[in-house]
């Protein structure tokens, strides 16, 4: 017997789960982003206090000084849930893979100008460790932040930063070799040019407030570092030695443009909630901005030479404009 299921038209009993309907109304179908995100974190009747943090519940909004009436006010403009996240990154990695393969196959690293190659290795290889720091910090915000809308994108961000550390490693291996990675780590640990930045990163490791950590890492440090390196430095290298390195940094440039939309939306929502929040965020952003500018100055010199002061000023001013759009006044 042939059954043609298309002839069956069934009226749903309900459109979505009650905790979603409570927010969007009962008559609307919810998006997959909404069902994957809204109220997914437990928020009541926890059984035990963490042995590692007995002053707080397992999930506890009071870990941050930021106060939100509703932690699901945060929205990721990219509407990432796991599937949209991985498929987006898979497309990006396919391009990046093709770029690496092209550079390898054509032997473009071997023919790349020696001076530019050395500068590229000196600047980019130690950044593996900065990305690794960003990975740890976002893992931390994911663990100790409140509400899936805020925390889920942080594990995406953490893994992205691991991916970036790995792309920088591949670049180091392609333009240098295993010893280049060791040399990069030595510079990160010992060279004066990197110490302010390393101190900044290590100081963020001990921040207890997840939103302050978000500001210090995702808004401020990335917000200054990425334009400086993946825009200014990239342009300089391209002008001096052609676009080979640019091809291998495209992931980071595209990634920064994409993730900034989420970072901005997050800050804007938190700042827009109350003047108290805005004041806290302003204080954090200003203090970490000042530290970041100091920490990045020697790196700017290393990367951009004579162009460094002008470039850094431009980057900082663009950052302040961006912060203003998020409701901050630095």
């Amino acid at each position, binding site marked *: 017997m042939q059954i043609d299921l298309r002839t069956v038209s069934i009226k749903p009993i309900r459109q979505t789960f009650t905790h979603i309907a409570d927010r969007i109304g009962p008559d609307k179908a919810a998006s997959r982003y909404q069902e994957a995100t809204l109220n997914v974190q437990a928020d009541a009747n926890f059984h035990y206090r963490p042995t590692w943090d007995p002053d707080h519940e397992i999930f506890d909004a009071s870990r941050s000084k930021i106060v939100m009436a509703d932690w699901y006010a945060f929205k990721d403009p990219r509407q990432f849930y796991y599937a949209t996240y991985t498929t987006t990154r898979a497309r990006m990695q396919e391009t990046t893979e093709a770029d690496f393969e092209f550079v390898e196959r054509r032997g473009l690293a071997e023919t790349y100008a020696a001076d530019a190659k050395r500068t590229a290795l000196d600047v980019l290889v130690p950044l593996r460790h900065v990305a690794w720091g960003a990975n740890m910090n976002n893992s931390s915000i994911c663990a100790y932040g409140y509400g899936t809308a805020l925390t889920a994108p942080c594990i995406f961000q953490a893994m992205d930063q691991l991916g970036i550390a790995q792309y920088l490693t591949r670049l180091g291996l392609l333009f240098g070799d295993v*010893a280049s990675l060791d040399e990069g780590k030595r510079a990160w640990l010992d060279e004066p040019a990197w110490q302010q930045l390393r101190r900044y990163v290590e100081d963020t490791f001990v921040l207890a407030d997840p939103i302050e950590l978000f500001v210090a890492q995702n808004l401020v440090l990335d917000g200054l570092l990425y334009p400086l390196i993946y825009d200014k430095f990239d342009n300089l290298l391209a002008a001096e030695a052609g676009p080979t390195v640019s091809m291998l940094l495209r992931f980071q440039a595209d990634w920064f443009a994409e993730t900034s939309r989420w970072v901005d939306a997050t800050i804007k929502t938190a700042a827009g909630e109350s003047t108290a929040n805005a004041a806290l965020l302003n204080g954090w952003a200003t203090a970490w901005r000042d530290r970041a500018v100091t920490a990045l100055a020697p790196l700017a010199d290393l990367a951009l030479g004579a162009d460094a002061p002008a470039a850094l000023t431009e980057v900082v001013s663009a950052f302040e404009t961006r912060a203003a759009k998020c409701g901050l006044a630095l």
Partner: protein
Amino acid sequence: MTDIANAPKAATTKKPGLKERYALMTRGLDWETTYQPMEEVFPYATYEGIKIHDWDKWEDPFRLTMDAYWKYQAEKERKLYAIMDAFAQNNGHLGLTDARYLNSLKLFLTGVSPLEYMAHRGFAHVGRQLPGVGARVACQMQSLDELRHAQTQIHSMSNYNKLYDGFHSWRHMHDRVWYLSVPKSFFDDAITAGPFEYMIAIGFSFEYVLTNLLFVPFISGAAYNGDMGAMAFGFSAQSDESRHMTLGLEAIKFMLEQDPDNLPIVQHWIDKWFWRGYRVLTLVAMMLDYMLPKKVMSWKEAWEIYAEENGGALFQDLARYGIRPPLGWQQACDDKEHLSAQAWSTFYQYQGAAPFHTWMPSAEEMDWQSEKYPDSFDEYYRPRFEHWAEQEAAGNRFYNGTLPMLCQVCQIPMLFTEPGDPTRICYRESEHKGETYHTCSDGCKNIFDYEPEKYVQAWLPVQQIYQGNCFGPDADPTAADFNPLLEVIKWYRMNVGVDNSPYEGSRDQQNFQAWKQQTTSNAPAGGSPAGA
């Protein structure tokens, strides 16, 4: 700077192999911090007493770099969502063997999916706190995977929620409903433990010893009952579990190899978490034996393959470190004869307080039980089930109207029987600071006695009801007609008389039959569902 960067490399550099490549992509990213002391950066690394001397000895189990991860996981997601969409578009639910099947999914969404989410957050925490880079990366990747599992399960079951009852308030229910505190307290227990204990609890005991029992036979059963959606998310999730299991196994080996002092601590955690996980699996036993209309294998058979055979091989392997099989192992193996029947009896009696439908097995299904459980079913359970079936047929279905006493540790009602005597309910008790606490078994009592200050904190649903903490704001306990149980059910957000009714006569049953009829008859389509 050396001149390495400019040295010719073409012929001399051989492409590094997988292991070397992965090591370069992870190890060496971290460093010993100096501006902040390591003990501030990793503050939870030592308080459990686990001694680690050299994190470099950590062996990475699966070596996935992020680019490979994105590539393969995206491929899995595309396949999974394609199946999910096709299943929904073609009214795949009407190809199910029977709408009774859906009740196992209700239990899954309300009981298991929230745990996937907890695993996500727990591994983010441990993936931040373990001082070794290899372990940290593996944990973070698992955190991301677990978010996947929670979200794909929600999406897959969202389709059923639109058409069937009992799925709608999974989040609210998980944090409140009496039996859902069993899985909830299990994960709350793990995440509030230290990072090393968490690795044994979830990475080892749960992932390695126990999840196969949930994801392999049950999901195979979902496929057997026509549920392509659950089959797709289940098998797809379990493929990530293969990575997780190897992580758990590596974690235990690593701890044992690092220092002999770790052995007694790890052994205690294995004892504890085996038993804690086994108790949660009570729900799975009942799903396999009673809730799948077409049965793939019995709980007993699944236990023999995945616990006795596979777990046995594992513990034999770990014996070289001085690890013995967990306390309670033998009792769990003996109880396989009784577990599912005792659990199903309980849910049948407490139908009024559970948002999924229950029923008595048909005559044919009872014969299946007799065949699978020749040493127990006919003697202990058939007479009771036949009696209840008769009573239900006569319009006199049995409901238990009193609240059960819960075990202080696993939070399951006192339904388990004494080892070796399936006719006598097992009770244990402990004293702590002048109070008496009740547990369901030696396993749970041992856990309580080892860490009483933790388990006295438990949010026990029955006690909470008696304390008046489980009523809505509009409930009035002083009213003459106040019905406390009804108020609790409402507070659970159950649709009274719909979600918690017996299967026979339920809206699910009626709609499923009506819709199915539409597929084979010329009756007008588009009729609104019963009782909508």
